[in-house]
């Protein structure tokens, strides 16, 4: 379930005017910006952008970029873009900074149609395909795996083939033991439907005693195996995955604001509520409290608003 609190009735024109007022004078009225944008659904935010453009012949996004700064600006920028466009930006940033997790998240958590929308948005924004940039920035097995993951258009049905799950669980087991050739792991993980994969992983655990991710842990900890484990986590239980990301991010000595922003902004309208509940269960501390402790200023206020705080 979503966490943001937004009204069903709103006026894009009024919001645009209020934002314009917030920009006037020295500095800008961040509280107003947060209280408006932080309480609007995606389709509402796009309407506000349109209204602002029509009223003032200026791109709201560009104005926000110039008025705001730091982590707060980055968060608002990501928040106001359309979801697919936002993910294209996140992917591009991730490729440049060698952050493979984001690529795995987009390709393994999103539905085939959502991934497709991101790829289209990437074409529009960067005049190249997502896969060509991923390929150009990686090598070897890691490249093969990541390019395959972002290129896939998985069958979306629930049907599973039990015999296939059995045989492919064995193939995965053998492939993991043999450290040289990873073709079969890449093939299975990047082409089979999610339902089929979950059946395969269950079969793996039944037949080989341990979950596939535990076995992947046991061996050497190279990037390729790390990405494999991330992909499997994303496919099997995405809320648990996100909870873990948040937990690690908050635990770290310098909070990784990029990751914190990413999770909250991309899930606030989807399942952040469920992730929050999981977080509370796991850490005995509400996510809002942990975030409030680790962040400050407008950035903190914005995140808390997205997390559901209602003034």
């Amino acid at each position, binding site marked *: 379930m979503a966490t943001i609190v937004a009204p069903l009735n709103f006026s894009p024109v009024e919001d645009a005017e209020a934002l314009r007022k917030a920009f006037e004078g020295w500095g800008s009225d961040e509280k107003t910006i947060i209280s408006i944008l932080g309480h609007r659904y995606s389709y509402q935010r796009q309407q506000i952008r349109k209204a602002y453009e029509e009223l003032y012949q200026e791109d709201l996004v560009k104005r926000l970029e110039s008025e705001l700064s730091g982590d707060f600006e980055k968060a608002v920028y990501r928040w106001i873009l359309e979801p697919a466009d936002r993910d294209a930006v996140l992917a591009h940033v991730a490729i440049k900074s060698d952050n493979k997790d984001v690529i795995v998240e987009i390709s393994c958590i999103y539905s085939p149609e959502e991934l497709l929308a991101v790829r289209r948005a990437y074409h529009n924004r960067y*005049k190249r395909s997502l896969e060509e940039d991923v390929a150009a920035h990686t090598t070897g097995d890691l490249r*093969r795996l990541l390019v395959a993951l972002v290129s*896939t*258009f*998985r069958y979306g049905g629930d049907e599973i083939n039990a015999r296939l799950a059995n045989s492919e669980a064995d193939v995965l087991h053998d492939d993991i033991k043999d450290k040289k050739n990873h073709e079969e792991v890449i093939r299975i993980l*990047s082409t*089979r439907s999610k339902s089929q994969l979950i059946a395969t992983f269950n079969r793996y655990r039944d037949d080989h005693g341990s979950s596939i991710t535990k076995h992947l842990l046991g061996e050497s900890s190279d990037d390729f195996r790390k990405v494999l484990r991330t992909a499997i986590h994303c496919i099997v239980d995405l809320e648990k995955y996100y909870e873990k990301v948040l937990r690690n991010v908050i635990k770290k000595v310098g909070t990784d604001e990029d990751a914190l922003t990413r999770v909250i902004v991309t899930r606030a309208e989807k399942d952040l509520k469920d992730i929050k509940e999981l977080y509370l269960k796991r850490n005995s501390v509400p996510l809002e409290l942990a975030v409030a402790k680790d962040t400050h200023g407008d950035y903190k206020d914005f995140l808390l608003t997205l997390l559901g705080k209602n003034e």
Partner: protein
Amino acid sequence: MALPQELEALTQAFSGHGVDEKSLISILGKWHPEETKTFRKGTPHFFIDDERQFERWNDERVRLLKHEFMRFKNAVVLWAMHPWERDARLIKEALKKGAKRHEAYGVIVEIACTRSSEELLGARRAYHSLFDHSIEEDVASYIHGNDRKLLVALVSAYRYEGSKLKDDTAKSEAKTLAGAIKNADKKLIVEDDEVIRILSTRSKHHLKSVYKHYKEISGKHLDEDITDLRLKETVQCLCTPHTYFAKLLDATLKIEVDKNTKKAPTRVIVTRADVDMKEIKNEYHKLFGGSLSNKIEEVANGNYKDFLLTLIARGG
């Protein structure tokens, strides 16, 4: 018409691509039993002299004839189909045939490389509906040889379709390809990661620029220097599709070709009629002299011939 001419005409009606329905009706339909018997005795490749004093149909011939009668029906059904379903079914068929005949995989390369990004995507969607699997998962699990990596990458591509490109990147990638070709005896080029990356992720505009730079570097065209068939087809389909289709039509619009090759003209004409048939016709004329329609007149018969001629005349 005198008998010898009719015999000739009837044999023609059964040879080539499709059958000449009108001749079959007008000749066979009116012959006396004696004339038909003369026909049977005079065509040893159609009828065998049986020991029990009768001329029997050659079973293999009848089987081939069945394909010829169906050629028009298959063309019509394929033409009426939604392009997405068409491509999905063609790929499935290629996967099934390819186990025994690797040339069939060429159809997968053809579809993956000559369709636009959205058309290929449509084919992938249709494949989900028709076969409950994704194209990439079937390609990956059916194909076990060296071609697998290349083919999975090609069918998964969702290329940028704009014209923006970085010329120095294209130049350096042409050099990379040249290097891979030189090393082809040490490292299998169809599995070379860089080759696959370039050919399966870059936009078509970018690849055409790579093709041009390659010619400048090495003097020959990229596809001429590649011996691996699938890779050669990949480059041709991506960089010079009209030439590829024109040559394919010339090679397959022949009277004596095997039944698998004979399916190509239907596929090419039906799938390109509304896309780039005009350019293919021009290229055909440039390469081979005569017109494509004359070639079709020569080797095809009846309704099938008329249908093909109508399709290639669309759009001028």
